């Protein structure tokens, strides 16, 4: 066993220590804070790479699953003990490398992006805390430890979304994100409790006694609850609720677009690359449970839980893509695109198994981080402008950002051959096509792919082509200023090297990663499943019809997008969207996010208001009445006590005081401070006593 496998806990610990130390630093020590946070992340990346290599070595030994486990007692209760553990397997190793690599690049990008923020120290503390929690989720070998890190991540995300807490919208968005994900977390928590109740352990792997190993799975799969569902399905569905909350799937997607109120590196790190992937990772981690405890071959997993995963994913993929078409904020478009792509990952997990979903997760993490950082660079260059209507023509003004953004856009849209997104999305569509229960996920997936290509083309055309329209600087997202003239560059500038270098690195990874999972050489799947990959072009021949379909869909999407938005660029910022003038009602509906937030406002939030009003009424009338009654009683008692005091006690007391004062004045004459006078008094008394005794003796 490699040394790194036994010390895997160091990877999350390093950023955690950095966060702790940074938290104690004074505000002005921002350079030290940046150094600590970034340095710890760099070390974590080095360790992650070592861990990754260690799992590669496991393959060479022919081990079926290169899994290293280290469990320990957390505390003992009576005869039993609560055990936690750390785990290194290919799934975790690949996530470790992704999280620490993308994380490090985003940390570096943040140095430039946050250069003018006075609260950089706090920012880097939160970033390091977040990274630590995410790495903890990845290496946890216990549902309990995973849950703990999961919650820390939720807190870090809350702190980072609300980083600019003086903006009311950011404060509200942070609260919303925290509460909505909490709904999912309740599901995860209940699933965890049920799991512990049913199996007596929360460790994933524990030499045959863990809850993801054959014994427990057979037991869970054999326990019927009601409605023909097994305990395994019930737990899996509850865990899925947690994953849905964290990964922003329908119907808990509403927090993710609002979370764009945070600084852009946060959006890139949390709401694109890593945190939202945690839900997908959780499903992948408990995948044996998701298959209902039955060891079905990949591609035929038709358990109820997996059908739910696939259904939720497919629905989300299309739904979010529709909403992305009509958004005006560059980050919101990307946010909905993230929701949509996460839907694809769920679809991949549900229909094709761990490898298919995880491959899209990894490729997406890179190109979505790239897109978000690119958007950050654009926003930085355009003086904090986020509305794409006020951009345009940035192709010439920000060439590096433009080139890298184009790579990300093509990967996301799924342009064939050289871009990673093509290969991973193609695999998902392929898996959905051959899925036995239903063809609907495939159809939805294809529609989603078309929409993805369409809205990304729209965004590219609006942001980078045409004329620059932001001559006059409006307030972000609100108010339409009168005077806007095209052509003036308005001081737009390319971002500094500390921001563009991460972009270039991410773009490079985006181009390279796709080759790890092509049908001809499915290295990624082989690596996750623990066997070695062979180069076989025959498989490519079998896969080409599907590839052709996705190429046609993508070409259609990009073509339509270009036809609508690229042919003639927008005249001025206030001109209506071409789609808006064609289909005003649909466009406005989409722009208003299909009124999901309003629906929640009208139902859940309204219900909540009613319940809290009833509670308030109860509080005011019943409890408040009781409190008032008690208060009245004590006031009455206090009044009578006071009258008694004033009429009886005080008079007697005052008289006592007066006599004491009078007596004291007399005695204070006696106490003159001279010790000898006191002694004289003593002697006088003694003499008197002696005379009296003698007198009595004589006459008695």
């Amino acid at each position: 066993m490699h040394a790194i496998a036994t010390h895997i806990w160091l990877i999350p610990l390093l950023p955690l220590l950095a966060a702790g130390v940074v938290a104690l630093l004074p505000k002005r020590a921002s350079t030290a804070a940046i150094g600590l946070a970034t340095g710890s992340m760099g070390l974590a990346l080095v360790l992650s790479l070592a861990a990754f290599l260690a799992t590669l070595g496991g393959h060479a030994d022919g081990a079926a699953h290169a899994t290293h486990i280290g469990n320990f007692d957390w505390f003992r209760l009576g005869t039993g003990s609560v055990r936690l553990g750390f785990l290194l397997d290919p799934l975790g190793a690949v996530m470790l490398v992704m999280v620490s690599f993308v994380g490090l690049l985003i940390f570096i990008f943040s140095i430039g992006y946050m250069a003018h923020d006075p609260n950089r120290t706090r920012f880097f503390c939160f970033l390091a805390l977040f990274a630590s929690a995410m790495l903890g989720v990845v290496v946890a070998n216990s549902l309990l430890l995973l849950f703990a890190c999961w919650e820390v991540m939720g807190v870090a995300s809350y702190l980072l979304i609300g980083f600019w807490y003086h903006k009311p919208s950011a404060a509200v968005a942070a609260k919303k994100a925290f509460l909505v994900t909490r709904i999912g977390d309740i599901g995860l928590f209940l699933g965890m409790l049920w799991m512990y109740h049913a199996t007596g352990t929360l460790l994933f792997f524990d030499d045959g006694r863990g809850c993801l190993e054959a014994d427990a799975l057979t037991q869970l799969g054999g326990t019927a609850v009601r409605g023909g569902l097994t305990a395994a399905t019930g737990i899996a569905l509850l865990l899925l609720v947690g994953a849905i909350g964290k990964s922003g799937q329908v119907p808990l997607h509403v927090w993710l677009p609002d979370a764009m109120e945070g600084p852009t590196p946060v959006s890139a790190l949390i709401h694109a690359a890593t945190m939202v992937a945690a839900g997908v990772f959780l499903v992948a981690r408990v995948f044996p449970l998701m298959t209902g405890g039955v060891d079905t071959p990949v591609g035929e997993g038709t358990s109820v839980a997996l059908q739910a995963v696939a259904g939720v994913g497919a629905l989300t993929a299309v739904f979010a893509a529709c909403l992305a078409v009509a958004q005006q904020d560059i980050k919101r478009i990307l946010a909905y695109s993230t929701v949509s792509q996460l839907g694809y990952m769920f679809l991949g997990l549900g229909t094709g198994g761990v490898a298919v979903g995880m491959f899209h997760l990894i490729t997406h993490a890179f190109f979505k981080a790239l897109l978000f950082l690119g958007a950050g660079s654009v926003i930085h260059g355009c003086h904090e402008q986020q509305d794409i209507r006020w951009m345009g023509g940035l192709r010439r003004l920000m060439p590096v950002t433009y080139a890298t953004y184009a790579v990300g856009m093509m990967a996301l849209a799924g342009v064939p051959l050289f871009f990673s997104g093509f290969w991973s999305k193609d695999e998902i569509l392929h898996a959905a096509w051959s899925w036995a229960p239903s063809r609907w996920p495939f159809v939805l997936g294809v529609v989603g792919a078309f929409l993805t290509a369409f809205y990304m083309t729209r965004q590219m055309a609006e942001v980078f082509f045409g004329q620059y329209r932001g001559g006059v600087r409006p307030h972000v997202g609100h108010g339409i200023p009168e005077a806007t003239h095209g052509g003036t560059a308005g001081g737009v500038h390319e971002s500094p090297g500390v921001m563009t270098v991460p972009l270039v690195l991410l773009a490079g990874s985006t181009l390279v990663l796709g080759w790890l999972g092509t049908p001809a050489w499915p290295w990624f799947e082989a690596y996750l499943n623990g066997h070695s990959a062979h180069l076989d072009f025959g498989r490519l021949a079998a896969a080409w019809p599907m590839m052709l379909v996705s190429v046609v869909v993508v070409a259609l999407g990009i073509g339509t997008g270009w036809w609508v938005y690229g042919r003639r660029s927008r005249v001025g910022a206030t001109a209506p969207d071409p789609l808006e003038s064609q289909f005003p009602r649909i466009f406005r509906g989409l722009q208003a996010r299909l009124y999901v937030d309003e629906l929640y406002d009208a139902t859940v939030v309204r219900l909540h208001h009613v319940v809290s009003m009833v509670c308030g009424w109860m509080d005011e009338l019943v409890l408040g009445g009781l409190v008032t009654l008690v208060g009245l009683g004590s006031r009455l008692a206090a009044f009578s006590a006071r009258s008694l005091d004033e009429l009886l006690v005080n008079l007697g007391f005052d008289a006592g005081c007066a006599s004491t004062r009078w007596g004291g004045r007399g005695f204070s004459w006696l106490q003159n401070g001279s010790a000898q006078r006191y002694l004289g008094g003593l002697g006088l008394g003694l003499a008197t006593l002696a005379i009296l005794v003698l007198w009595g003796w004589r006459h008695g």
Partner: protein
Amino acid sequence: MNPAQPYLFLAAALFIIGMAGALARRNAILALVGIELMLNAANLSFVAFWRHGPHPDPQTGLMFALFSIAIAGAEAAVGLALIIALFRHRRSVSLEAAESLKG
């Protein structure tokens, strides 16, 4: 004549002299000396009453006197320490200077 009588007269004389010194002296050290004299008068009468009393065999009176002497030593130490403190405070050992505790 009771055999204890001369000792008791001596003790009474010592007590009166000590008391006069403690009352009349302005110097704190000499007042302390007077107090010591009064203590020793008491010790003398202890021993006299024990020696010529009804139970001379157990050494009770002697022991009492020994304890009293030990206590007198301790008391002298405390008293001298007080006088030093007083001197440091007022640059004087006169008892007339120490009368700030008046009512």
